[in-house]
């Protein structure tokens, strides 16, 4: 499935748009969980050793294992696990929002 497809909004206006039983039609990727976040993890590239432990333990998952890892702030809920688990203190917590 392409990313685009993944985030397809399913529009249901009436019963005809629904299958006979409640069988899902799209991915929860539609649901940007950014709003749940009250703290924002920020990777400090210089400190980061690319060990990917942050990626490994992100429950969403909201970290892509790139070089350096990229946090997808559309989904990161701000649980703080990556901050806790980074062995090199390369992720810091920032206050979210206004």
């Amino acid at each position, binding site marked *: 499935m392409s990313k685009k497809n993944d985030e397809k909004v399913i529009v249901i206006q009436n019963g005809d748009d629904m299958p006979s039983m409640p069988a899902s039609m799209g991915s929860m990727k539609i649901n940007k969980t950014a709003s749940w976040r009250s703290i924002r993890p920020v990777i400090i590239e210089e400190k980061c050793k690319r060990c990917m432990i942050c990626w490994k*333990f992100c*429950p*969403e998952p909201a970290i892509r294992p790139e070089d350096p890892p990229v946090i997808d702030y559309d989904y990161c809920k701000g649980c703080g*696990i990556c901050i806790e688990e980074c062995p090199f203190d390369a992720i810091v917590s920032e206050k979210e929002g206004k």
Partner: protein
Amino acid sequence: MSNKTKGQKIKLTLPIEEVMSPGHLACQGCGATLALRYTLKALGRKTIMSIPACCWSVIDGPFPYSAAGVPIYHCAFETAASTASGISHALAQLGQDNVTALAWAGDGGTFDIGLQALSGAAERGDNVIYIVYDNEAYMNTGIQRSSATPHGAWTTTTPVKHYKRGPKKNIMAIMAAHHVPYCATANIAYPEDFIRKVKKAKNIMGTKFIHLYAPCPTGWKHPPDITIQVARLATLTNVFPLYEIDNDVYTINKKIQKAKPVSEYLKLQGRFRHLSEKEVQFIQRTVDQNWKRLLKLEEAFRNEKN
């Protein structure tokens, strides 16, 4: 862990593919969610799951969406194993032998209301991987005791004045008693070990069982950021040892040189806050006893075919 800088090839210790998508409805720092993320990394997309009532019936998302990325049958609370049995037999009959039938249930759905169906599947040897993600209570309904709730814990049905007495049901011993071809414990803090076990299970015919430790910040009353820490401590204190039973042969996967005191594990969690020093000592003794028991079993039931 070697230093890596920009441009270096990144080494990953887990399969890179993310089958489970973000956007799901798990609480922040949910262990159960990591649990499925790892499981599907191990099994890939040729997997059909049964999921009974549990946090995962919510985490997966409401109609018309789903986060799992593989087909799921959300089944009745009691029926994780029996639904998976049905799926597995259908796959066999319809010639889809390359698809894994996975039963994915919480501790309540496994230790309690789904135990009988699991026992039946194991006895028949239905070709199913059964993974219980254990967060030690009924979380989806708001933290009630299950028979996986450990001694001493607070839950809403074991209030502080009446905190849970009696040990956690020993599900591994129960499954071992079924002489399933493979059963193992695992812990989300050790994903490499877990994924190895799931992959191993995938290649064995019959009923495979994995007891997976998955902390729940909401129910255990710890901050979400220390989920992994709490999980890790469970193993480092021998509260939750990692071992596997392969055709009745016991292997402890991680023998802690010097186990940490259980109190370190307990004190991180609000659900144990009320415990007296004496009670903590009692728990420590129990953990030590269980560990000894496990060592004895390993000793008694090693591979004899060699």
